[in-house]
């Protein structure tokens, strides 16, 4: 379904990356694969460096760090925050919501909304839609949208498909009303029938964690994974992205009456280099218009990947200019989403490191 939002805009973006960097070249030795094959995988998938949190560091830590940075820099005032929206699949606790914990740690006002929504890779677009809906309420003038995940904690060290891919991060986007008569087009689709392609089988209430769910099993392709670990059916997801994302974007552009050439950038979730290259080819979008450099520097950081691709590739440009972008997020659910909007000029668009 296509949605239209009016008079809303993003006014600032911040990405918080853990300081701790891992390198594929060093970690290769842990896998049951000959080196030559691992190097080939590195090239194709874009594995190189990724950022991972230290043990004990959680989503609320990254979020609090980022918000405190904005308070100290005078870029955001505590009392202006009317809604705190946290999109994550790796909360600090089952109870209470992590957005409440962030609110408490930062001493924010009581007269506000705190909301935890469970989403990962499609989470930035979904989060923006939620923020726009909240801003329709008179009492809500400023929404802080936080996307954050620490999925590295659920990656099996013996799974070469997953372990070198996953990065941790948090992003903060400030969303407000736009005095100008702007229009944002968005699309969102879900298919729970294919939910099994991207899951963490144990840990929730369906199958609580136990000694059994921690046992590493040989899943048949020389990778070892436990039920507690993140599972990705690579082939199924590749097919899903190739099949569903291009028609969604095309449909969205048609609905908005905008030609493909009229879009300055396609800022997509960054699953891995290969998948995004193939997507660009299928959509006949030149590679330069679909930046594909997040995985090799920071890893696939879930819902933060779109903010990371924006902050990494358009850091200074968006401070001065306004560009027309098409965002696309797709993943767990399965969920796929796209959004066409003008981005910029932003008050801030930066990457900082969590220490």
């Amino acid at each position: 379904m296509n949605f239209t939002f009016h008079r809303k805009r993003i006014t600032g973006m911040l990405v918080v990356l853990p300081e701790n960097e891992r390198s594929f070249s060093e970690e290769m030795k842990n896998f049951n694969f000959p080196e030559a094959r691992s190097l080939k995988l590195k090239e194709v998938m874009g594995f190189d460096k990724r950022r991972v949190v230290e043990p004990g560091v959680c989503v609320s830590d990254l979020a609090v760090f980022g918000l405190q940075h904005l308070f100290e820099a005078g870029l955001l005032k505590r009392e202006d925050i009317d809604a705190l929206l946290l999109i994550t699949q790796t909360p600090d606790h089952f109870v209470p919501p992590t957005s409440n914990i962030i609110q408490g740690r930062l001493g924010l006002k009581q007269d506000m909304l705190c909301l935890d929504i469970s989403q990962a890779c499609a989470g930035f677009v979904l989060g923006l839609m939620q923020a726009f809906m909240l801003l329709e309420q008179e009492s809500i003038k400023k929404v802080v949208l936080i996307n954050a995940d620490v999925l590295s904690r659920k990656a099996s060290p013996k799974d070469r498909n997953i372990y070198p891919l996953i990065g941790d991060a948090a992003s903060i986007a400030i969303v407000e009303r736009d005095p100008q008569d702007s229009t944002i087009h968005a699309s969102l689709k879900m298919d729970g029938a294919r939910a099994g392609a991207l899951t963490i089988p144990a840990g929730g209430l369906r199958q609580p964690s136990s000694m059994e769910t921690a046992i590493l099993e040989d899943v048949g392709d020389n990778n070892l994974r436990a039920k507690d670990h993140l599972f990705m059916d690579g082939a199924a997801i590749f097919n899903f992205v190739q099949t569903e994302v291009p028609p969604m974007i095309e449909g969205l552009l048609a609905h908005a009456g905008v030609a493909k050439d009229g879009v300055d950038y396609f800022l997509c979730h960054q699953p891995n280099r290969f998948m995004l290259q193939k997507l660009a080819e299928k959509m006949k979008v030149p590679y330069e218009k679909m930046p594909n450099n997040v995985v090799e520097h920071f890893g696939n950081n879930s819902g933060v990947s779109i903010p990371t691709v924006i902050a990494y590739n358009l850091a200074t440009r968006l401070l001065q200019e306004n560009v027309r972008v098409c965002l696309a997020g797709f993943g767990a659910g399965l969920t796929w989403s796209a959004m066409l909007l003008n981005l910029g000029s932003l008050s801030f668009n930066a990457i900082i490191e969590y220490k």
Partner: protein
Amino acid sequence: MKSIFKNKKISAIVSVVPKEEYRFDDEFPAFKLTPEKAKRFKKMMSLDRHRIAPPDVCSSDLCQYGLEQLLKDGTLKKEEIGALVFVSQTPDYFMPPTSNVIHGKLGLGHDVICLDINQGCAGFLLGLVQAFLLLEISALPKVVLLNGDVCSKMMDKCNRISYPLTGDAGSVTVIERCEAENPIYMDIKNDGSRYKAILVPAGAFRTPATAETIKLHEVEEGVVQSEQHIHMDGAAIFNFTMNSVPAQVDETLAFSGDTRESIDWFLFHQPNPFILTQMAEKMKIPAAKLPNNIVSLYGNCSSVTIPLNIALNCGEQLREKSLRVCFSGFGVGLTWLTMVMDLGPLPVCKIVDYERA
């Protein structure tokens, strides 16, 4: 933070409870309570019985069953479902969202929005707020709000304070647009500085589940819990409830232009009858207008206490007419949310027992 929602209404509510009912009189020997202490506790908390889900039944099962009933009896059609909002603190998985799992099991269309929200006690009302926000999108037909929790799985069966008071349940609420303005007034407040009052310390990402975190500790005589269980600071919760909720109820009534007399029913979250009696007294609300019987019959089932409260105490009245109600949900977060609206008529407003497929 106040808001008004217009042209929205609840059109059906089904609550689903496990068939398995357990009586306090049968359970108390397991709690290490002397018969005198058991008698005192039973009296103080008006305990009688509660419903507990079997080991393999989760929040999504209870909610899915309720939704299937509404589809089966024609109250709702699949194509009318614009969004599934699942509110819980006991989801099936970290990934994928439980609403997507239910979406898949029911074979719903790709245009259905699925959202999982993490909340407990204030979760029915927060879910309604989400539904109202979604319904501003004119293309979206109806929103189905699913509330479900299996909190019994987050405590030890021998925990004499938590276990007898808890219950498992799910509910399905259909929300849609309406011609009539039907203004709905709400106030929400959050205080995360007191988040530790209701906390599950381990099992998610702050402290992952390990062999250590599953070990039981006796924190007081007969009160056994692990780090993966719900830890409740009873005194802090009591003080919070008594100090914060009455003020919010007064504010919201002033906001909507109502008085204690103009409200037909005060339908509050049901933590336990003791607290509710204190609250009714403090707020000078006649006990007859503030139902207090859910815990005695079903247990405190988190966000589902309000839907159960509606069905059990007002269901019959609501079939014929509209009632002016004041809802209040308060707890986990800490979050407290009060809402005043006209409710009904509701032709479908019931409680059913969960049946396995």
